[in-house]
């Protein structure tokens, strides 16, 4: 329990720090949303001053930070000036889509990469290992943007999948099965781009971790006792190898969220990515920090999840607690 509490406290501290960091950036930014209005002769300086007062832009910084934190706590995430509404509702619909994409990609990546890594480690220096190793190092080294553009080109040219957006026109009229099918066809392209980006990293990590365990003296001892290869691998090696792999989860999530920003923009998936990009180009900074903040929250939550998994899988951490108590 103490481990968990410590981690929870740390996550909260991180959130506080990230919010401070994000807010500091809004304050350091040159230019504001009303800059272009100032150039317009039909809008008087008084109007702009009133607008600034209305949106609270003329109040001192600590008070604005407090206000922002309050609206964060309420789930409003600040106020979007361009849409004249709280950022929250705008963000939630987009965040749901991003979450759908990244969660599916995460599950699929780990489902594919972990067995591949284990297989590769258990058949070291054989053909399968070489093949898996070569393809995962290729996957790691090709930039995500190239994968995205290339797959998009293939998909558009040969009309393999549905490209653009998340659902087709007339989605609401489809039957339940039709809806699922439509969503699936739209998801296929972004998911495959994310998979190509992620599998290599995870596979390599799993292989390194498992093969390190397989080389330890106690594994050799177990082997010499005549324990079968499969039992050795699944019963003795994998539980020990799980710890570093679970610890990778946080970094993996960071990479995945970044990649999904890119993928969403390229494939037109209505997630956080296109939102943050539009907001950046129109200098709607509250939306930008809200989206950045939300991505940080997703990531901290993911890290916390990894901690829970660590407790479940690693008796050293559990027992460490028992000793401490």
């Amino acid at each position, binding site marked *: 329990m103490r481990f968990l509490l410590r981690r929870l406290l740390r996550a909260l501290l*991180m959130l506080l*720090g*990230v919010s401070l*960091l*994000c807010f500091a*950036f*809004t304050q*350091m*930014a*040159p*230019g504001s949303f009303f800059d272009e209005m100032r150039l317009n002769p039909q809008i008087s300086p008084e109007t702009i001053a009133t607008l600034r007062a209305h949106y609270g832009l003329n109040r001192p910084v600590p008070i604005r930070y407090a206000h922002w934190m309050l609206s964060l706590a309420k789930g409003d995430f600040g106020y979007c000036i361009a849409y004249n509404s709280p950022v929250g509702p705008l963000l939630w619909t987009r965040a749901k889509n991003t979450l759908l994409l990244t969660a599916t990609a995460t599950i699929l990546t780990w489902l594919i990469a972990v067995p591949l890594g284990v297989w590769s480690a258990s058949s070291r220096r054989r053909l399968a290992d070489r093949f898996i190793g070569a393809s995962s*190092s*290729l996957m*790691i*080294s*090709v*930039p*995500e*943007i*190239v994968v995205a*553009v*290339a797959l*998009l*080109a293939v998909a*558009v*040219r040969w009309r393999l999948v549905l*490209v*653009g957006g998340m659902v087709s026109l007339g989605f609401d009229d489809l039957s339940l099965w039709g809806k699922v099918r439509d969503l699936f066809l739209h998801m296929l392209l972004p998911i495959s781009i994310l998979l190509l980006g992620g599998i290599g990293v995870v596979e390599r990590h799993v292989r390194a971790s498992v093969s390190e365990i397989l080389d330890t003296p106690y594994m050799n001892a177990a082997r010499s006792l005549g324990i079968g290869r499969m039992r050795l691998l699944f019963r003795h090696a994998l539980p020990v190898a799980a710890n570093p792999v679970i610890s990778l989860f946080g970094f993996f*999530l*960071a*990479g995945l*969220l*970044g*990649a999904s*920003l*890119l993928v969403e*923009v*390229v494939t037109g998936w209505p997630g*956080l990515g296109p939102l*943050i*990009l539009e*907001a*950046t*180009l129109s*200098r709607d*900074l509250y939306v*930008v*920090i809200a*989206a*950045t903040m939300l*991505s*940080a929250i*997703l*990531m*901290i939550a993911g*890290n916390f999840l990894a901690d829970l998994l660590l407790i479940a899988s690693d008796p050293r951490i559990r027992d460490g607690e028992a000793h401490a108590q």
Partner: protein
Amino acid sequence: MRNKTAMCVLMIALVLVHLALLFAGFFAPYDPAAQNRDLSYAPPTRIHFVGSTGFHWGPFTYGMVKDFDGYREDQSQQIPLRLFAKGDSYTLLWVFHCKTHFFGADRPARLQLFGADAYGRDEFSRLLYGGQISLAAGLVATLITLAVATIIGTVSGYYGKWIDEMLMGSAELFLALPWFYFLVGVRAFLPLHVSPKETFLLLIIVIGVIGWARPARLIRGIVLSARTRNYVVAARAFGGSDFYLLRRHILPETFAVLIPQATLLIPQYIAAEATLSFFGLGISEPVPSWGNMLSTLQQYNVLVSYSWLLAPAGALVITSVMYWRLADRLHYWLQSH
């Protein structure tokens, strides 16, 4: 031994790529910004050896004529390709004014190896000039990251205590933000419409500074362990100053980390620059970079019809695969030594 040969080959290939891009003006047959509206989306020029009069030893090409459905070769006149041809003027290495290009074709033909973009600009020339920008962005941003990381990591590891706690705490903060969101977020707070030179500077500083956390943690670890070595303690007992100890005994140890880190960071930063420019947040027209050259492909009709505009993607793949392979090799090499 095999590893060593492979590493040498990789290094040589990388150096060649960088040299080719450094001398982009010489290897590119045309000015990257020169527009040629008659040749909008012209396909790659074909190089012939066999013409109406039979086989020729010297390669030649034909002029392009616009047809009602695309481009056609004007086969009435064979135009030979030349080595060291005179063409658009350029400045080599930002100093020497030159007119000689490595290869070219006489007018009216244009030798466009990778075709032309929407404005009829030569894609091959833009690829070379764009490579200058993209690789320079990757290299300089990496230098910035490593400089910041070394300073922070050393201070943190050497002085310890509350400085260490504070610095490593903020490192964790930087690692808690998804890197790319953070990058776009920070970019959002900087002016969008400034001159290409300023954009380039802004971009490399943003990319470089944001990535400091992970290398700083590595360097801190090394400094921390180096600080307690016997010879360092001895040197301190003989009255060596902090600066002397750092310079003479501690910083040299960090090189073993810095170099592999650099080979890992460079391809990531090249990709980061390309992605930002692709989104229109980086280097802007008319200055080419691999990212903003790819950004025309966001239109589906361009993506489908003009496949030669994918050339920058190929260039990105080649350079980044080479850097990653080098990083791999270095990793094994350092492990075995």
